[in-house]
């Protein structure tokens, strides 16, 4: 690993839970932007934990407006900078998975389609954490959340995780990438690239949430890595429409290793029929492996 830049633009003192993957993701992403940047942020854990008036963790100008408009607000910031001839200033929009792939999809789609020079970062912790772990369109199949609880007749979330990376790519934007807090160099490089490229770019960062996923705070990074090593979260870039630089996996791990430490999947190991559900998840990983040629010979 290379040495990380010392400078923090998302500083400590915020109120995120111990071991929060989102806070780590934001910290790394902010190392990838320079001081000459403006950030917007959707309502969610990141916003709530970082801006309790009169305190702030943000060392760059930062604006939170609403839950579902981070992209549109950023578009407005960028338009204003263009009007003022200050295109040298970077604009970074941020949102959680809910604020991005569900309620914020309209404004995200509009911003991407219109070609604003904005780098959008989605911190994906796979549920609405700020409001108490409800399912989002980004929640993986069979995960138990407070609105898709496991129960006598339920194995948790019934739907497959929405592929927001593909939706972003469908806007014909120059750069789309997935990243993970377990691979900080890769994450920083991707956010840097997203920022440097002229036009709209989209980076989705996988950020485990100890509180919502039900795991110890000291295995956040390990879990994020397991998501990649099992093939459930694929690291890749898409430049000008072409998939590039897929992170290959040596000896892909069975999904159980990733699922087991998380309480949101606990029922799969206890309930009758759980095995098939785990198999279902394994099939998702296998199909990812096939699609992205993940397995390294």
């Amino acid at each position, binding site marked *: 690993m290379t040495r990380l830049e010392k400078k923090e633009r998302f500083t400590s003192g915020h109120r995120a839970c111990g071991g929060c993957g989102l806070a780590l993701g934001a910290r790394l992403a902010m190392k990838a932007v320079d*001081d*000459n*940047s*403006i950030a*917007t*942020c959707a309502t969610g854990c990141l*916003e*709530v934990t970082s*801006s*309790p*008036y*009169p305190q*702030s963790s*943000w*060392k*760059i*100008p*930062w*604006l*939170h*407006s*609403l839950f*579902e*408009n981070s992209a*549109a*607000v*950023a*578009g*407005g*910031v*960028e*338009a*204003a*900078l*263009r*009007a*003022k001839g200050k295109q040298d*200033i970077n604009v970074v929009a941020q949102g959680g998975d809910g604020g991005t792939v569900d309620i914020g999809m*309209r*404004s995200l*789609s*509009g*911003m991407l*389609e*219109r070609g604003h020079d904005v780098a959008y970062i989605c911190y994906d912790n796979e549920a609405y954490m700020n409001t108490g772990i409800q399912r989002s369109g980004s929640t993986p199949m069979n995960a138990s959340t407070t609105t898709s609880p496991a129960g006598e007749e339920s194995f948790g979330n019934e739907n497959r995780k929405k592929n927001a990376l593909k939706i972003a790519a469908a806007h014909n934007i120059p750069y789309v990438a997935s990243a993970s807090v377990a691979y900080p160099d890769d994450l920083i490089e991707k956010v840097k690239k997203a920022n440097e490229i002229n036009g709209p770019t989209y980076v989705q960062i996988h950020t485990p949430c100890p509180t919502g996923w039900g795991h110890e705070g000291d295995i956040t990074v390990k879990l994020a890595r397991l998501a990649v090593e099992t093939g459930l979260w694929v690291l890749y870039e898409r430049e000008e429409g072409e998939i590039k630089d897929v992170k290959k996996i040596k000896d892909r791990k069975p999904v159980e290793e990733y699922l087991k430490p998380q309480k949101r999947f606990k029922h799969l190991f206890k309930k009758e029929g759980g095995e098939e559900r785990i198999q279902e998840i394994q099939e998702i990983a296998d199909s990812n492996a096939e699609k992205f040629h993940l397995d390294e010979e």
Partner: protein
Amino acid sequence: MSNQEEVMEGSHAVAHAIKGADPEVIAAYPITPQTHIVEKLSQFVADGELDSEYVKVESEFSAMSSCVGSSATGARTYTATSSQGLLLMNEVLYNASGLRLPIVMGVANRALGAPINIWNDHSDSIGVRDAGWIQLYAETNQEALDMSIQAYEIAENQDVMLPTMVCMDGYILTHTYEPVSIPEREEIQDFLSPYEPEHKLDPENPETFGTVGFPRDYTEFRYQQFDAMDNATDVIKQVFDEYSDKFGREQRGLIEEYRTEDADIVLISLGSIMGVVKETVDSLREEGKKIGAIKVRAFRPSPAQELIEAIKGSDVIAVLDKNVSIGKKGALFTELKDELYSSDVNPLAKNFIVGLGGRDVPEDSVKKIAKKAEKAKEHGRVKKEIEFIDLKEVYDND
């Protein structure tokens, strides 16, 4: 003043005013009957007559959201909408005022669905009266044009810093051709102070906007907005006066009195309906009736204090509302009556709901209203406080 009169529709008159105010960013979405404003502005940009960044958003929700981003970055910002579009912005409206962003928005007043209706009433802007925006209402195209310029000087005043709606009646003004006097761009620029907000998104001086306000501080945020709206009363008067002096208009005060000197009966309303109201006053005056009218120019901040002063000595006030709160009454009526309670002015008060969904309000209807007010005066009491005027007979239990 030197500026020449030109005949054009109200929407285009507003677009010309905005061109002169020279916003750096426009973010807007089409909706009837507002569309001609933003189409004209697009054309100005396309023809190089206006140097604005025009953001062609995918919804009104994003229009107002982009306005928030732009205004927070220190850019003068404009948008316009109507009806359903204004409602789609609702959540962002509160945000814009909470963040104290002096965005100016044209509202072409239109009814709300269901049933869907593209014609004029005031349900849309009245419905968002608590969003923390200044609301100005125009009677004529000239006034809509002038208010669109004045709005920036009011909104961007450091003691105000509140977003401002310039409301004009859909179709009745937006699509009607009238002669208007358009100030030269230089004159408008000379009239407007430059927009230099104390706080903005700026990497040279990074600040955090849109924090979490805990119970410890939230009330003070709201109080500051409340106080700023209070300040707006004087700022509006001052800006109206300065503008009238500079451009040779007579648009002064939050309200305008019309033949109220010795009036026993006063008709009160806002918007384009004041034309027919004034004409009715004229013809009833000819019949020897002591009747006058008051036009409300600003609904937020509340014009109540000026209204109370103006209706002193009258026996009956008749408030004409182009909106109705289902289960209550018209907005102007309830708000005015509320202020009367703690004043020593105590006329009989009647509320007339008129012109919903574009229903025409001819002179005959206003005469009917005047007659009902007269009757109340004769009886010395109000039997029915709220009445829908020109209701089809089957519903009219009068």
